[in-house]
């Protein structure tokens, strides 16, 4: 599992981030003291570092610079300053990504995933999602069952992936739409219905019936 270190002085935000990342398949850890931040970070040596800019004792940009001297770990700078110049500066200090508070969590996850993918070539942890009945190939956007493979469109794939990730829970239409919107597919309600219908048809081709059930007025549920 990928280890993510959170360096953030706001206690609540730190704890919630930890919970959130743990819920999303990472092993999150957070620094609680900031006396020896640089040494602590190097000692823990995470796969990825989430670094707040405003810290007691030393500021994030300095830490970033110091760590770059010793390590190549991916660093995402978290800041509340949001102008172009600050962004440029922190990239200059050696950060790989920059995200502003209050952040869109899906975007945070996407940035983490893409950074980890780039820096851990060979591990490819997220390439396949195996479910009981089928396998989702993230890189090819296909669904596989008993050697039979069917291509899904971008939207269909995302919908299925989201439902699988939230299995055994009713997922509202709004939630699915938000997930797609985060990926810059600004579909409307009707398009979602069409997409879900097509997805069901494709699943039926693989003889997977009634995997996605409609809950009237509430949304969809994926259960097996």
């Amino acid at each position, binding site marked *: 599992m990928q280890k993510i270190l959170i360096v953030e002085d*706001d206690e*609540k935000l730190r704890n919630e*981030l930890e*919970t959130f990342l743990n819920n999303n398949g990472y092993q999150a850890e957070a620094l609680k003291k900031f006396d020896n931040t640089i040494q602590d970070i190097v000692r823990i040596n995470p796969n990825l570092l989430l670094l707040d800019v*405003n810290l007691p004792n030393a500021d994030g940009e300095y830490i970033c610079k110091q760590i770059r001297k010793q390590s190549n770990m991916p660093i995402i700078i978290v800041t509340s300053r949001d*102008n*172009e110049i600050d962004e440029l500066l922190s990239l200059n200090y050696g950060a790989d990504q920059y995200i502003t*508070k*209050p952040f869109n969590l899906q975007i945070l996850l996407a940035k983490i995933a893409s950074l980890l993918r780039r820096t851990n070539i060979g591990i490819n942890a997220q390439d396949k999602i195996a479910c009981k009945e089928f396998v989702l190939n993230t890189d090819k956007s296909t669904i596989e069952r008993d050697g039979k493979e069917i291509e899904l469109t971008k939207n269909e794939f995302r919908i299925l992936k989201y439902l699988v990730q939230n299995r055994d829970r009713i997922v509202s239409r709004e939630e699915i739409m938000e997930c797609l919107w985060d990926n*810059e597919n600004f579909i409307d309600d009707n398009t979602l219905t069409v997409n879900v219908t097509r997805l069901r048809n494709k699943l039926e081709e693989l003889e997977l019936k009634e995997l996605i059930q409609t809950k009237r007025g509430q949304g969809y549920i994926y259960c097996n």
Partner: protein
Amino acid sequence: MRFKDFLRDKLLTISLLLFGLITIEIFLAIYPIGNFIKFYIPIILLVLYLIGIVIEYLSKRKFYENVFHTLDELDEKYLINELIKTPNFIEGKLLRNVLEQTNKAMLEKVNQYKYLQEDYKEYIELWIHEIKTPIAASKMVIENNKNAITKSINEELDKIEDYTEQVLFYARSNTVEKDYYIKKSNLREIVNECVKKNKNILIQEKISINIHDLDVSVNTDSKWIVFILNQLIQNSVKYRKEENYSEIEMYTESGKENVILYVKDNGIGIRKGEITRVFEKGFTGTNGRLSNKKSTGIGLYLCKKLCDKLGVAIELNSIQGEGTEVRLVFPQGSYTTLENK
């Protein structure tokens, strides 16, 4: 400065001189002296005095004409003192001296307010950065505890976030120095970011997003444009027709000298007579007075102000009952294109 006025100023010395001459003439008339002397003395005195007076007049006229001329040409008239030469007569020197001192005093006063304002702006920016951490923390709590209640709190948090953003840009819009950073920015990325930012309310209110022809890059500060677009989208959401299908359309048209970004909605529109006033500060209009619209009259005012600073033209067209169209015109030409050398 007319000669007549100048002479009037010299009235006292002239009358004293004439009085002196008359007494001299009376004395000369009593003593037996030749006529030549009797005429020579007053004439030579008068002529010499006249020459003196004319020279003085010419030099003063030159100086003051120069002062007034420079004053006319100056945009910032208080700089006059830096531009006039030190004259060779005492009143002129005094005038310069007085100007210098009053200018200095005024500059100090102005600076005092400038520092106060900068101070305030810095505080506001600091405050906004501080408030973002609790907002982020609250959003994390909500994300980890998703349900109908937290969802509703999340919507309110979005509003708080937007209002804080507005404060930040308001503070920025009032400063003299440049606070922006121009670079090549892709309009699709900017539009996408704005739509994502407003996804909660847009999905909730079932507003369709229709975007096309956006793969254009312009030279601008993308953060500012995101803010401006955000205001426009929020307006479109706020002033939609509740009973109808709502749509926001965004696209660009590239001309020879510019790129125009259109933001169109099919909302309630703006009354004809009020269109010209929508960019005024505090103007809310008929729509703003509708129940539960909570119009502040700040959004479009800020958009206009920020656009002016960025050199982007903002134009608004609307038909009441049919919708509103806002155009952002980005200049694009040899003059504004950054060249890679």
